[in-house]
């Protein structure tokens, strides 16, 4: 293969476009596209969060009209969340949170913004594809949003959309078909982004930026992109067959009978979970990478066991592809196969614990600065630990047969791939906001946001573990209808109250975000005093990122080095900086 000459300087880089459309809307600049993804993701985070509030109201106070917004949203029932509405709520909550909130914020937003800046490149490898990726995602969100208003109601077969619920018989009407189309478009957008990120990291690293000098954030995004490129296409295949089943009348997921041959509803579950389990790592890997960097930055010392951390991440990526069966223990899987999946799943805890040891080792005897991003990174470590340990119970076939489809599962995956990932996303927002928007967020308000969020996350999802252990199934519109669940209602009300406080606490973030966007103190180039490449350029970075492509000399965590302190009078060294 020919390799391109690395041309330095600005002479070949196109100037920023002058029209509003090309600069702000149909931009091919990774920083603008990153911001677009961030805004889109935050909007849908708010929507999906709102849906969760409605659900929690119904579970805690079944049959009572929703205060304030109830009559506006559900005029037909006098403001009460009907069982059908409840089903639609949890379907859309899960779908939006996973595919249209967390993924756009972390991978779309920060992946786009950070990867080129952190490896010393001027843009992604394929800027036009990058733009296409955003607008494909936009089309997906448009289709999914429209499905709210479909004639027979929104999609109602859960975020997993298992047949037979999701077939034309189980879900008549166009809404479920729109869901399938939205998921396919969303997947296409993710794969375009993944192709771009993988290629960018392989091809566009600055001179001297070896793989083992990359910030762990970049490792997180790169590995998540590899999983994205490999496994999202499998979901796409499931979506295609479901689409054909619904629209053309093929029979892939329709069970056969003695009269007419058919396919197999369980087949969809295989296709879904071959994708679905790697997906949870697609969500958490960027957050892990970000937290690993932030812990080092704010403990003012190098990441403990950087290479071991990287190899653990790689091991997790490989293992994540061979454990999906643990989602299907109750489908009548052969015990031998179930046991294999159980053992493989439990093996994941080995690299996961190594990661945790690395994080604690990084903190050990560090000169810790408890800034807001650091607090959120610490919160991620704690919450992920909590959620991760509960995963061991679900990995075990016998325990899972009891816990399957209970609130234990809900609590577990909210702690790991929702709360932990969102805490990582907030860490990223508080950390890179100065670089993205050129202004500082308010620190005291951020710390209050953190304290309330962490407390309510632990109460809400921790107690959900308890509810599930006590036998409460998920997806019940009215648990009080079952006599054996009535004693759990007080616990349900605590969970809901905690969730409402969590929702309200996010208003602090919204206020902080918008106030700081316009009125926050201007950010210096390097407000956190760290050495990765994005902090060597102004905040926000110029259109071309770097006046000259930097030459990287050291790793990302050159912090607390006494030799540096003696010569430069500060405790960090930029990645492209040489000691005089």
């Amino acid at each position, binding site marked *: 293969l020919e390799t391109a000459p690395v041309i330095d300087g600005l002479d070949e880089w196109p100037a920023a476009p002058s029209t509003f459309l090309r600069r702000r809307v149909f931009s091919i600049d990774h920083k603008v596209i990153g911001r677009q993804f961030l805004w889109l993701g935050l909007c849908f985070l708010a929507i999906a969060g709102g849906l969760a509030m409605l659900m929690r109201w119904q579970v805690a106070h079944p049959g009572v009209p929703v205060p304030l917004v109830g009559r506006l949203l559900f005029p037909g029932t006098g403001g009460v969340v009907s069982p059908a509405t409840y089903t639609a709520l949890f379907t859309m909550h899960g779908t939006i949170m996973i595919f249209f909130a967390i993924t756009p914020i972390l991978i779309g937003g920060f992946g786009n913004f950070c990867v080129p800046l952190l490896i010393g490149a001027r843009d992604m490898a394929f800027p036009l594809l990058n733009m296409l990726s955003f607008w494909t995602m936009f089309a997906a969100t448009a289709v999914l949003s429209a499905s709210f208003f479909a004639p027979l109601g929104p999609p109602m077969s859960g975020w997993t959309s298992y047949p037979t619920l999701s077939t034309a018989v189980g879900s008549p009407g166009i809404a479920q078909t729109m869901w399938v189309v939205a998921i396919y478009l969303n997947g296409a957008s993710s794969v375009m982004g993944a192709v771009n990120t993988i290629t960018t990291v392989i091809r566009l690293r600055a001179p001297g930026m070896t793989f083992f000098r990359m910030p762990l954030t970049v490792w997180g995004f790169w590995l998540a992109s590899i999983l994205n490129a490999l496994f999202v296409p499998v979901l796409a*295949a499931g979506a295609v067959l479901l689409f054909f089943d619904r629209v053309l009348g093929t029979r892939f997921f329709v069970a056969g009978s003695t009269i007419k041959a058919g396919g197999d509803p369980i087949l969809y579950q295989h296709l879904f979970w071959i994708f679905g389990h790697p997906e949870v790592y697609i969500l958490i890997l960027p957050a892990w990478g970000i937290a690993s960097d932030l812990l080092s930055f704010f403990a003012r010392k190098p990441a403990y066991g950087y290479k071991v951390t990287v190899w653990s991440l790689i091991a997790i990526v490989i293992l994540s592809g061979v454990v999906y069966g643990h989602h299907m223990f109750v489908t009548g899987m052969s015990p031998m196969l179930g046991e294999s999946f159980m053992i493989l799943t439990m093996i994941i805890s080995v690299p996961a614990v190594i990661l945790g040891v690395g994080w604690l080792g990084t903190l050990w005897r560090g000169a810790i600065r408890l800034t807001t991003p650091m607090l959120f990174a610490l919160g991620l470590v704690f919450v992920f630990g909590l959620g991760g340990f509960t995963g061991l119970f679900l990995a075990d076939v016998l325990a899972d047969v009891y816990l399957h489809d209970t609130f234990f599962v809900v609590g577990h995956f909210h702690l790991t791939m929702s709360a932990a990932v969102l805490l990582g996303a907030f860490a990223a927002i508080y950390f890179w906001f100065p670089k993205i928007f050129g202004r500082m967020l308010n620190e005291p308000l951020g710390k209050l946001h953190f304290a309330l969020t962490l407390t309510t996350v632990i109460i809400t999802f921790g107690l959900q573990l308890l509810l599930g252990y006590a036998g409460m199934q998920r997806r019940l519109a009215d648990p009080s209808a079952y006599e054996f669940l009535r004693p759990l209602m007080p616990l349900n009300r605590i969970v809901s109250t905690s969730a409402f406080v969590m929702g309200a606490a996010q208003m602090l973030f919204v206020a902080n975000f918008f106030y700081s966007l316009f009125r926050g103190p201007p950010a210096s180039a390097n407000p956190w005093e760290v050495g990765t490449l994005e902090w060597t350029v102004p905040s926000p970075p110029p259109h071309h990122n770097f006046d000259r492509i930097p030459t990287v000399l050291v790793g990302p965590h050159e912090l607390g080095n006494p030799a540096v302190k003696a010569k430069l009078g500060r405790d960090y060294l930029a990645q492209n900086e040489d000691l005089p």
Partner: protein
Amino acid sequence: LMNVARTMPPADPLVAADPQVRSRATSSVGMAIALGALTMTFAALFLAYAIVRSQAAAWPPPGEAAAALAWPWPIAATVAALAGSVAMRAASRANRESAHTLTRGAEARIPMVPAMVQAASTHTAVATVPVPQRTATTITTTTKLKRALRMTAAAGVIFIGVQISGWVGLAAAGLRPSAGMVVSVVYALTLFHALHALAALLALLWLLRRVSSGPLAHTSALDVVAAFWHFVTIVWLVVFFAVFVA
């Protein structure tokens, strides 16, 4: 300097963005990853087919006609797909020859976007790279390239036409997608594959337009389209053998 700048083609975002961006290796890496992703989709579809078929009592299942698996149109489609790939290989060969004679041109074409040339006041060397004259050799290779690409496109159009005639024929024989498992498999795999064949054809037409406006300054555009084209052919061969022959 300004004269040179004005005669250059408008900025193509992919070409102009960065020398690294337009390099062959970068596009090849990107295309390889994209094809890997597509392979996963098709592999998952074939997995679904394998599971459905292995669970059936017999294949075709009792009560379903084997007519859907009759060979005439799949064989015609296979011939068209293979012919397209052969023609595409000829195009790649012509393109390599053309790229060889145009190497200097490839260097000269890129920096001539007006904004860049203006920004490069201290880099006068950029503007002084000689723009090569079109020689007799480059014209012949370009003609060869165009002819090969048109033949490839023709094969692609025939392929899609054969697929459509196949679906129409099935439907006319009363074999709609809902008729049974065999037709489900036939429709799903050929439809999804044909959509990718259509995408390959559109990419090829875009390439033909670029070739018509002047010789290709670099080979990566044709390389990636050719890779995608051959991929679609290979997937068709798998469909043909797995669904119609096996």
